[in-house]
């Protein structure tokens, strides 16, 4: 197990190094001159030159890369052009909103997709199976942002069931920040009304994001369950006279879990990245919307910081999935 972990961590290190090179190259492609931006709008030529020296832009590319690596490992991602605050601060204040939305969507998709996949597998080619097939097709074909707009049209404008966007209704104070996730913070503060309001605002964006996850997860659950249900031990469990529910949930699902967990992990990463679209549609104050605004304002430091953070989280989640493998299936470690 230990060797497996070390190897996996080393790989993560290599990947991150590779990614940092790619992102560094991208930041050098940017047409705007960082020195000019840093020096300000009315800077003279000498001031820009001074800023260039200060930022190290007059040195060779490999030197600049090392400086960039040092800065990033200190958590220094530069300063936002708009807010003038350090990029890392901007990202950390907006991150809980994104995390809450992604977690909500992940939980919701799991609750829908896994039972759907199991039902589709146990009654193969039955009506549930067809429903799951159509759901999956819709889920992968719907553009997230357009689906979000359609939800707003139906559930906000015509039915007025859910709010248009945002995290809380105006007039509702955010709960004292402990985790930054309003659902958990309002629970900790025992403020029921805030909890309901926060959940209320989560429904539409959460649903809009969940399409793909439900599609992929339910298909994977179905395929994996079908594979397992054919096995001998399932037949033995049935022959022992165990109730079907127990056979499916205790004997089959556990063994079918490995691919499902993989997909779940990968999807969580994808949800974090898909947040850019959903948050833009629903005015959700997370890092995705921050990035969207950075695009509009040509705020490159924020955009690159966002890319770096999300990519880092993405690989971290993949690592976590791999580690989960080790626990779910001890045979993997041996290899």
């Amino acid at each position, binding site marked *: 197990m230990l060797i497996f972990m070390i190897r996996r961590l080393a790989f993560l290190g290599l990947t991150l190094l590779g990614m940092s090179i*790619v*992102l560094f190259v991208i930041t050098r492609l940017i047409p705007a001159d960082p020195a000019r931006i840093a020096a300000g709008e009315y800077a003279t030529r000498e001031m820009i030159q001074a800023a260039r020296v200060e930022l190290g832009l007059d040195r060779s590319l490999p030197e600049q890369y090392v400086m960039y690596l040092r800065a990033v490992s200190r958590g220094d991602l530069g300063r936002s052009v708009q807010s003038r605050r350090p990029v890392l601060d901007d990202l950390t204040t907006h991150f809980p909103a994104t995390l809450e939305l992604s977690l909500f969507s992940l939980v919701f998709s799991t609750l829908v997709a896994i039972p759907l996949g199991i039902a589709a597998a146990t009654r193969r080619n039955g009506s549930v199976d067809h429903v799951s097939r159509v759901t999956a097709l819709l889920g992968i*074909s719907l553009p997230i942002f357009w689906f979000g707009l359609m939800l707003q049209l139906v559930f906000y404008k015509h039915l007025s069931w859910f709010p248009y966007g945002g995290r809380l209704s105006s007039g509702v104070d955010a709960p004292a920040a402990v985790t930054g996730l309003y659902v958990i913070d309002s629970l900790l503060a025992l403020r029921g009304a805030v909890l309901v309001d926060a959940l209320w605002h989560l429904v539409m964006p959460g649903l809009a994001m969940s399409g793909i996850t439900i599609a992929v997860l339910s298909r994977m659950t179905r395929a994996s369950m079908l594979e397992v249900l054919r096995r001998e031990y399932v037949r033995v469990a049935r022959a022992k006279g165990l109730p079907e529910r127990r056979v499916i949930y205790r004997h089959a699902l556990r063994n079918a879990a490995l691919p499902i967990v993989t997909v779940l992990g990968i999807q969580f990463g994808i949800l974090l990245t898909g947040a850019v679209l959903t948050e833009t549609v629903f005015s959700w104050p997370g890092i995705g919307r921050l990035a969207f605004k950075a695009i509009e304002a040509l705020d490159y430091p924020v955009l690159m910081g966002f890319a770096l953070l999300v990519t880092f989280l993405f690989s971290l989640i993949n690592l976590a999935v791999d580690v989960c493998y080790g626990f779910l299936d001890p045979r993997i470690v041996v290899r």
Partner: protein
Amino acid sequence: MIVAVLLVAAVLPAAFGPSDPLALHGDARLLPPSHQHWLGTDEVGRDLYSRVVYGAQYSLRAALIVVMAAAGIGTLLGGVGAYRSRILDEIVMRSADIMLSFPPLIMAMALVAALGPSLEHAALALAVIWWPQYARLVRSQVLTVSEMTFVEAAVATGLGPWRILVRHILPNCWGSLAVKSTLDFGYVVLLLAALSFIGLGARPPIPEWGALITTGRQYLLDYWWYPTFPGLAIFVTVMGCNLLGDGLRDFLDPQG
């Protein structure tokens, strides 16, 4: 079927588009769908139906370029690496590992933002991101196929490695390549529209579908048809590709 209709629309919009997608009619702003304007009109009185039909050109052409470029580069690097050059194989696969560990949308955002927002740059960025998937696919296929007896026979007859790779090995990879490209095509259409939506793809007045939705979004609550129909076009396209891809897979590999 769906894909065929879309291709006709992309190649020959005149067959569908009854009017000029850029013609302004100041007195016909934001009209609801009617006989005259099947899908309504936009904020400056342009016919939305025509715009959606002409939009197919932009969306589909860009997606086609992305998939073809990615498949071409991927096949070349993956195939040659797997069959001939260990060093190339090692370089290609390690860079593929790194590229694949980026979330595609984020990588595309960073690249396009750096290059400057436009549909061409969006397509370029996606092609850069996409080739490793094809390199991996072709590599694994080539490794499997080159173990087979008919390849040994070809080697035994003294054919050159290039000829064997191009004439004997690669044709056996086309099936899975076709399936993957079809499925990817839909996904790329989706991503291109998403990039346009966040302001990193096609810019108005180009009637690209994602860009249409971006502009139409401001009118969502009062003029529902504006963002609805371009989105429907994307949805139908992607669904068509997914169905076609699945169909192709069943056709090429009935056991799977």
